[in-house]
C-alpha cells in the first residue's frame, strides 16, 4: 500500500516537472499557427522548421558556442582555483583563516545588479567589454567563492586519518592531497562543477551588460533578444529554449554517476 502511494507521488512529481518541458519540446516542433489554436497541440504535423530557421537564418549556433566556451572556462578556472584553496582552508593552519573565509562569502553576497556599473568600468579599462574573457572574469567573481565554500565544507568532512596515513606512508603534504584527498573529492568536485556550469550557463545580467555585438551574446541573452519583424517568434524561442537545455542535461548526466557514488564508503570503520 505504502509502495503504491509512493510510486503515485513520484509519478505526480515527475509529471509536474516534465510536463512543461515536454510541452516545450512538442511546441517547438510545430508550426506557429498551431500554437495559437485553442485545442491541444498534439496530433498536428511535426517539423524542424523552427530549428532550421534558428540556425540558418539567425545563426543561433554562435550564442550556443559562446555559452559553451564561457560556461566551460568559468567552471574550469573556478575549480582550478577553488580546489587547492578549499583544501588549504580545510587543512592548513594559517593566520586570519576565518577572516579570509568570511570575506570569500561576503564577496558573493553582493546583489549582482549593484556591481554591474563598477564592473563595467573595470572591464572597459581592461579593454574586455564585448569579449569572452570579459564574461568569464566577472563570472569567476561569483563562481569561485561558491566553489570554495562548497569544497571547503567537503574537505572538512573528509577524515584526516586518510591523509595522515598517506603521510606516514611517505607522501608529502602535497602528494597526500593529490593522491588521496582530491581523488576522494571527485563527487564534490563534480557537484561543484555542475553548479558552476549552471550558474554561468544561465547568467543573464552580466552577459547582457558586458556584450554589445550579436557575435558575443550568450544563449540567455540571444533568446531574450530574439525578435521578429511583426510578431514575437514563439516557435523559435521555444526551439532555442530546448537547445539551451541540452548542454545542461548532458553535463548533469555526465557527472551524475560520480555524484551518486559515495566514494568515501569503506574508508574508515564499518
Amino acid at each position: 500500500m505504502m509502495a503504491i502511494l509512493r510510486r503515485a507521488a513520484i509519478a505526480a512529481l515527475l509529471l509536474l516537472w516534465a510536463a512543461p518541458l515536454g510541452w516545450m519540446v512538442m511546441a517547438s516542433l510545430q508550426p506557429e499557427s498551431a500554437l495559437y489554436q485553442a485545442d491541444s497541440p498534439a496530433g498536428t504535423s511535426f517539423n524542424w522548421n523552427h530549428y532550421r530557421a534558428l540556425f540558418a537564418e539567425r545563426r543561433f549556433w554562435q550564442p550556443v558556442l559562446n555559452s559553451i566556451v564561457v560556461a566551460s572556462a568559468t567552471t574550469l578556472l573556478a575549480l582550478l582555483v577553488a580546489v587547492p584553496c578549499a583544501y588549504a582552508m580545510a587543512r592548513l593552519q594559517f593566520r586570519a583563516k576565518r577572516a579570509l573565509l568570511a570575506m570569500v562569502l561576503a564577496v558573493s553576497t553582493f546583489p549582482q545588479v549593484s556591481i554591474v556599473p563598477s564592473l563595467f568600468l573595470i572591464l572597459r579599462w581592461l579593454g574586455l567589454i564585448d569579449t569572452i574573457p570579459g564574461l568569464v572574469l566577472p563570472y569567476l567573481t561569483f563562481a569561485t567563492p561558491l566553489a570554495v565554500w562548497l569544497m571547503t565544507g567537503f574537505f572538512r568532512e573528509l577524515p584526516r586519518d586518510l591523509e595522515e596515513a598517506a603521510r606516514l606512508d611517505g607522501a608529502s603534504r602535497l602528494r597526500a592531497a593529490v593522491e588521496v584527498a582530491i581523488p576522494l573529492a571527485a563527487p564534490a568536485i563534480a557537484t561543484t562543477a555542475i553548479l558552476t556550469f549552471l550558474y554561468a550557463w544561465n547568467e543573464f545580467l552580466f552577459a547582457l551588460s558586458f556584450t554589445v555585438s550579436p557575435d558575443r551574446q550568450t544563449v540567455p541573452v540571444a533568446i531574450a533578444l530574439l525578435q521578429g519583424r511583426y510578431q514575437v517568434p514563439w516557435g523559435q524561442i521555444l526551439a532555442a529554449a530546448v537547445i539551451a537545455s541540452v548542454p545542461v542535461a548532458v553535463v548533469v548526466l555526465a557527472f551524475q554517476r560520480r555524484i551518486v557514488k559515495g566514494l568515501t564508503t569503506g574508508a574508515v570503520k564499518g
Partner: protein
Amino acid sequence: MAAIALEDVRKVHAESARPALAGLSIEITDGERLAIVGPSGSGKSTVLRLIAGLDQPTRGRVRIDGVDVTDVPPESRDLAMVFQSYALYPHMTVRANLGFGLRMRGIAAADIASRVLPVADSLGLQPLLDRKPAELSGGERQRVALGRAIVRHPRAFLFDEPLSNLDPQLRGRTRTELVTLHQRLGATMIYVTHDQEEAMTLGQRIAVLREGHLEQVATPQELYDRPANRFVATFIGSPPMNLIDGAMARSALGNALAQRLANMQLSVGIRPQDVIVVSPGDGLFAATVGVVEPLGSTTIVHVRTDDGTHLIAATPGAHKARPGDSVGVRFATGRAHIFSAEGRRVEV
C-alpha cells in the same frame, strides 16, 4: 629497527587550556613492544602522534636512534602506523593500498608487486587483492591496515587502538597474531590502548598515562604486583583493586604493621583475588553479599561490610554465596598495598 625517545615533551593543543602532555619522558628500546595505556584524555594518542610527526610538541624533543627528529615531517621518519579507523584509501584496491607506501618511496612497480604478494599471503589477503575497502569485512580491513604497515619494513610500528572495532573473539586472536608478528619481525612496536587487559597481553612494558602525566612504566607483572600509586593500582587488574581507608585499613594491615605506621594517613589496597569470603563470624569483618557474578573459572562476589564499605572478592571456581547472605571477610596475609595520603605507594 629503532630506539625511540621522548625527552620532556609537552603538548598543549590550541583549543584547550590543559596540556595534553605535561612534560613526558620515556625511552623505548630497539625491538621493544611497549603498550601505552590510560583512560580517554590521558594523552596516549598524542604520544603516538608526536612520535609519528603528525603533531608537533610544544616543548621537548623526539629522538629516533638518538637523532633528533622533532622537526622532521612524518613522511621522512620511516615509521608505520595502524589507525583505529584503519584509514584505508577507499578509492584504491587492496593491492594498491598495500603498495602505496612503496610507490611513494619511488620503488619500481615490479618490485612493489613482489613485496606485496608475500605479505598478502601471510595475512590471507591474496583472494581480496583486487577488491576495494568498501567490499571488505571489518576483520579484513584490519588485516589490510596491518599489511600496509608490514610491507614497508618500517623502523617502528605505531598502533592506535587498532583492535577496538573488532568483535571480542577476533580481537583476542589478532592480539596473539600481533605478538607472533613482533617475534618474527623483531621490530619496535608501540601500542596504544585504553584496555588494560590488551595492554597486559601486548606490552613487554606498559606505560600508564593519566591526564598527560606518566604514572608508571614497568612490566605487566611489576605493574600488577607493585603499582606505584593508587591510580595505577585501580587501573590495572580486573576486577579493580579494593581501596579501603581508616580503621578498616588499619585492621587489614595487622597489628604490628598498623602500629609501625600509626602516625601516617594511609589507605590500603587489596586485590579482589586476595579478598577471602568465609563463614559468618569468621574473618576480620562481617559483611552482606550483594551481587554474585559467576565467570566459570572465578566467581566475583560483591559484599558490603557492616560499616558500609563495598568490597569485591574474586574467588576461584564456583561459590555458594547468594545475594543477602551474611558472611565474614578476611584478607590474604602480606598482600596489602599501602598508599600514602597523596596516593603514593608506601614500601614496608
